[in-house]
């Protein structure tokens, strides 16, 4: 099965992706993750405005069959949550790296980011 992992993103072993623009980063879950979960029916993120540490839970994603925690890829303040996912959680399935983004964070420092997996390291981890 062919899956995409954009070269310019970084990845966590918990299957989040993060894309950096200055000190603002956008975060979502990977194509691999959305396929494993199946139809996503509910994204719950109630940490807007909070500072969340790397590796801590910032929300949950509910698929038909299962629920899964969302982990912060890098320490920072959650500045924005993708409101479109309230009414259209399926965007995470159809466009995981685009319209299916989940949060925007202001990073505390970029070291966290630099220590994450590259696209090829992540692809290898999920057996692609």
């Amino acid at each position, binding site marked *: 099965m062919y899956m995409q992992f954009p070269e310019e993103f970084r990845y966590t072993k918990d299957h989040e992706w993060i894309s950096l623009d200055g000190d603002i980063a956008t975060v979502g879950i990977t194509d691999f993750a959305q396929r*494993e979960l*199946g139809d996503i029916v*509910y994204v719950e993120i109630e940490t807007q405005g909070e500072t969340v540490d790397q590796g801590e839970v910032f929300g949950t994603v509910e698929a*038909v069959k299962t*629920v899964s925690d969302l982990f912060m890829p890098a320490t920072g303040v959650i500045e924005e949550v993708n409101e479109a996912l309230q009414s259209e959680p399926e965007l995470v399935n159809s466009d995981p790296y685009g319209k299916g983004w989940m949060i925007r964070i202001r990073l505390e420092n970029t070291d966290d980011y630099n220590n994450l997996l590259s696209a090829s390291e992540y692809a290898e981890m999920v057996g692609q």
Partner: protein
Amino acid sequence: MELKKTALHDKHVALGAKMVPFAGYNMPVRYTSDIEEHKTVREGVGVFDVSHMGEFMVRGPQAELLIQLVTTNDISKLKTGQAQYSCMTNLEGGIIDDLIVYKLAEEEYMLVVNASNIEKDWNWISQYAKGEVMLDNVSDKISLFAVQGPKAIEALQSLTPVKLADIPFYHFVKGEFAGVPDVIISGTGYTGSGGFELYVPNQHAEQVWDKIFKAGQPYNIKPIGLGARDTLRLEMGYCLYGNDIDDTTSPLEARLGWITKFSKEFNNSENLRRQKETGVERQLSGFRMIDRGIPRQGYELVDADGNKIGTVTSGTMSPSLSQGIGMGYLKKEFTQPGSEIFVDIRGRRLKAEVVKMPFYQA
């Protein structure tokens, strides 16, 4: 332990299915999308490979006596060509398995049991098989396809001379199907959307599967995974062994009184009869979420003050209702439809309402 494969395993992989371990088998959980597959069965027609299910043949002059002893339903009036939903009880008040009993001929029955319980059931039944009765475990020789949905009759009719529309619910015909003789064509299923289950010898499984898809093409027939099988059965309030019923739940608590017949004696029938007279303290009940959230197996059910009143045994987002639904054993005073209960969803107390099952009229 190495996972077993069904005869169709390579087909599922080629179709792009996500395969998962289930009851010792490597099974397709979904091909494309749980919701799409669910709706295909509700609105059209879909095919499940459920060959992991177990089949036991029971033959001989004392076959009826044995089945009457180990199962709770009464087969004394079952006619050849009829099937019956039933369960097997242990001696401690619980359920060993739920199953379907097929009467193939006089003194000849087939028991269809859950894959996860094949060994347990076999050992259990064997210890009661005394006298003129022959038991044969044919689970590894038979493939089972469930063709389910409102278009199942139309989609399959060209494959068989048997008039499918004339097979009533919980009846079956042994006949030619897709060029294979003696296929059991059974008006049963686990979805509530109508259709058939087909028992086919393994060596013909691939031929039958391929012909079903060819004949069903004009009806947009699709393969359906175990994920949608679970949401379909839960919308109907059907029990899943291991979730909603197990070795510790009584059939009366599980609302299976309708298949528990005290007109005869069976394993533990005296105790269950007493339980019926005294009344049960908890009962398997359905509920739907009022607050937004999805109940999952193991979550606690609580009252308005936070006191525990039960545990979720099965829960999901209902694709037909677009709402969280679930089942769980509730203390008797909360089982009335309309009762307000709460589900502890990861530390949040979310409101739900007890409802009559099925959740959805297919």
